């Protein structure tokens, strides 16, 4: 759009062009006023300046992006600290959540958490959190993240130094997690001592056989403890597919210790959770004492992703015994897509 160009451009008249001539532009046969020509020239120079600015931005970015790779030595240095100082029950939280390359290097004994949504995870099973951050990555906003993360969490010292410690391009900080609740008992860890059966509406039971680390039930149903995805979050839970109809799949546990809270959590795993439609029905979880009271119920609606949880009051037994028998059962009117996962934990008081 050179202001000097005098070629015409109308819908039906493509401009005359010679080899090497200036490009056509929005300047017609009429003479252009000097003011307008000046404005146009300025606009075009602004446009050229915009291109140069974009190019410099692009060039700078591309020349520095290789430098964002985190050297293996940085991970190794962090791994050494964790191997030395991490305690049972500790967890490593990644920031940004997707920086999972760390898992290649960190000691296997300390769980590493990083999933879409982990920024707001209470990590309530872990009294201490190692926050491993890569603050120099593009779009990384560690101060913004810390504003939410540090609520009910207090920094602890690493090597006698409180606050984040740099390991090259990584930063490591240790926190006391005041959102944690001590886990006194969990169904996942006690499944092999459980009684698992299919319960019909008339009260009849069909016992499930324990083999190969899981219970095998009629109609190809299984109950096993394993890792599953609940709205991108990895959870180790009891996989309990609802049998469909009025039947219930039941897992019964003896010697559940009395605790301030009995927490029941449940969700539909993976993409089955998202699915919705007329053919699907809610997934109902009931916690109770066999043949006695119902302690609580949890319903996972159709189309609901993620883990739902309910905290139940759970003191000593009616006879004052410090341990009780508890059952957890699942039911859904329709069998389809009800791939449910359940957690049952007895929790101590908060810190």
């Amino acid at each position: 759009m050179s202001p000097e160009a005098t070629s015409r451009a109308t819908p039906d008249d493509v401009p005359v062009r010679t080899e090497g001539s200036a490009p056509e532009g929005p300047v017609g046969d009429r003479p252009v006023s000097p003011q307008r020509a000046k404005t146009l020239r300025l606009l075009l120079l602004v446009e050229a300046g915009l291109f140069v600015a974009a190019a410099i931005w692009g060039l700078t970015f591309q020349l520095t992006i290789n430098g964002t790779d985190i050297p293996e030595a940085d991970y190794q240095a962090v791994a050494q600290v964790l191997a030395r100082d991490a305690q049972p029950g500790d967890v490593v939280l990644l920031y940004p959540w997707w920086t999972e390359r760390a898992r290649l290097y960190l000691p296997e004994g300390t769980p590493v958490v990083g999933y879409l949504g982990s920024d707001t995870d209470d990590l309530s099973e872990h009294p201490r959190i190692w926050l491993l951050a890569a603050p120099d990555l593009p779009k990384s906003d560690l101060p913004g993240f810390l504003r939410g993360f540090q609520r009910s969490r207090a920094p602890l010292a690493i090597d006698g130094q409180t606050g984040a410690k740099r390991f090259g391009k990584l930063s490591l900080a240790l926190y006391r997690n005041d959102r944690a609740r001590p886990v006194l008992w969990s169904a996942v860890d006690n499944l092999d001592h459980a009684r698992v059966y299919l319960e019909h509406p008339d009260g009849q039971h069909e016992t499930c056989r324990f083999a190969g680390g899981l219970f095998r039930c009629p109609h190809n149903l299984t109950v096993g403890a394993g890792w599953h995805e609940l709205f991108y979050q990895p959870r180790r839970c009891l996989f309990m597919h609802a049998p469909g109809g009025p039947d219930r799949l039941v897992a019964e546990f003896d010697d559940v210790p009395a605790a301030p809270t009995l927490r029941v959590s449940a969700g539909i795993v993976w993409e089955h959770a998202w699915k919705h439609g007329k053919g699907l029905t809610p997934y109902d979880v009931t916690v109770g004492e066999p043949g006695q009271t119902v302690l609580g119920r949890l319903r996972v609606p159709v189309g609901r992703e993620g883990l739902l949880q309910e905290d139940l009051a759970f003191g000593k037994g009616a006879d004052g015994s410090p341990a009780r028998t508890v059952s957890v059962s699942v039911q859904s009117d329709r069998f389809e897509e009800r791939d449910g996962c359940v957690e049952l934990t007895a929790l101590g008081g908060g810190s």
Partner: protein
Amino acid sequence: MRDLERSRAPLRMDVWIALAIFVGTVALLWATESTQGFPRDESFYFYAASHFASWFQLLLHAPAQALSDAAITRAFDYNHEHPMLAKELFGLSYLTFAQTLHWLRPATAFRLPAFALAATIPAVLHLYGSTLYSRRAGLFAALCFYAVPRHFFNAQIACFDIPIAAAWLLVVYLFWRAMTDRRMWLWCGLAFGLAVAVKHNAWFLPFALAPFSLARGLVLTRAKPVARSWVWAFVGVYVAFAVLMALVVLGFGPQAFLVRFELLSPQSLLIFGLWVGLGWTLQKLRAQDTKAFRALAPLGAITVLGPAVFYLHWPYLWYHPVDRTAWYLAFHAEHVNYAWTYLGTVLREPPFPLFYVFVVTALTLPVSLLVPMTTGLFALGARTALGFTRRFATWRPSSGELLVGMNALASILIISHPDVPHFGGVKHWIASICFLALLGGEAVDRACTAVTDALRRRSAPRPSTGRLEGAAVGVGMFALLITPAALATAHVHPYGTADYGELAGGIPGAATLGMQRQFWSNNVSGVLPWINDHAPPGARIWLHEVTDLAFRDYQRNGMLRADLQPAGGPEDAQLAAYQYHQEFREQEMRIWQAFGTRKPSYGLYLDETPQIVVYQRR
């Protein structure tokens, strides 16, 4: 001096430049192809192309048998959701260069025609841009196109997204040429036939071209009532066809319409009538006004040659044209939705976000190319809008420029419809980017002119140095704008589906934004050397998302050890390679469960983002 109203043929020098660009592009794609993994779809197309190669051999040795319905169905039934042109070329190349001459490994032989089809894009961009705008604009459009990492990736595989973009561009270019140049309407029709033989996207093309044909035809016959009446007659033939066909559909009902669609049926008669009617009205129009004829003839050619070439190129249709075409169209009309991660949400079903295509385009194009393309499009829009005012009437763009603008938006707007499946990164609207590249070329050209003018004003150089100054500004601007994109392409190659531009913060920035990490499974090529070094002899390997065909292709092409066995899942595997997708997280947990560990052994991490994570059974 050339009059573009008389001929839009490129200058000889520009033809040579286009040829050099074509050869250079093929050479570049070929030279860098060997590390490229095999996307899921490519493994299907390799297989389909090899079926075609077998059929072609049968055709040479036993033609009567090859032409039987049974032999054709056997050869072409596989992957009949896509027409055959590209696959025929892949298959012929494989037959020639791998099976017969043993010059190339199978994958390269299959891909060779894809390189050639891909190379037509920058070549045509240069021809188009240099004629419509300037040589500098054409050259920029051509050179910037494959500097885009995702374009470069798509150009290197034997799939259809780049071929259909090339065909779309070629049809529009020939359509534009046909407005002035003799017989070009026929080539335009033929090119459209080839386009629909590549992929179904091309069926939308007539809707992007028809308004231009009709508007030009009406404007040119403004003072010629007889010619104008033939323009309306031409339109009337289409309207009559549409009305009568609709009546037949209503009369028969949709099912019976298909069942009764035979050679001698009202439906066939109507199609034949349409073709004859178009030919007759065009003949009459030609006698009245050659220019108006040239405006409408491409549409006529498209209407006749499109379906004809589509039918003839695809033996699968020869015995069952109606039901198989109906199945094909229905397949794409009801295409399934694949899960796709976008700004932290996994999109699984419509309605999809309205601005998805615009956002993804902005986040994936290198910023140094995105900016000129955007200002080019906005300048065209502004000139169009201002052109309606009396004061700025002379700013109104030419129909050629509007045609480019329309096609720059066509694919983008089609895919933007909230009910159209959204997956596959940018590959489904690359045709639009071809035209955005032209607009970007024009924008860069005018910026270069403005800078050159400003320099001249300041220094008032001798006339002899003016041209040199212009060239220097051009070279400098080209280098500045294209280098960042080329660096990005080199940086991410061969993992183009994972690429994001500067606006997204590159690959790590996009991960934080919650964008799709990768797709199509080809990034697994990054961990194959490690697997070859560490897998026990005869080990069972689970390559998540990699098709069995692709597994075999990696072995056939020497990228994966031949003794390794594909496993059906982590439960029966010794080694597993998980593709990091948000929608597949459960699969990684299956591996943890089956292997008894959550600690990976190896992985492909691009700028720290996990792409492929490898586990070994404990």
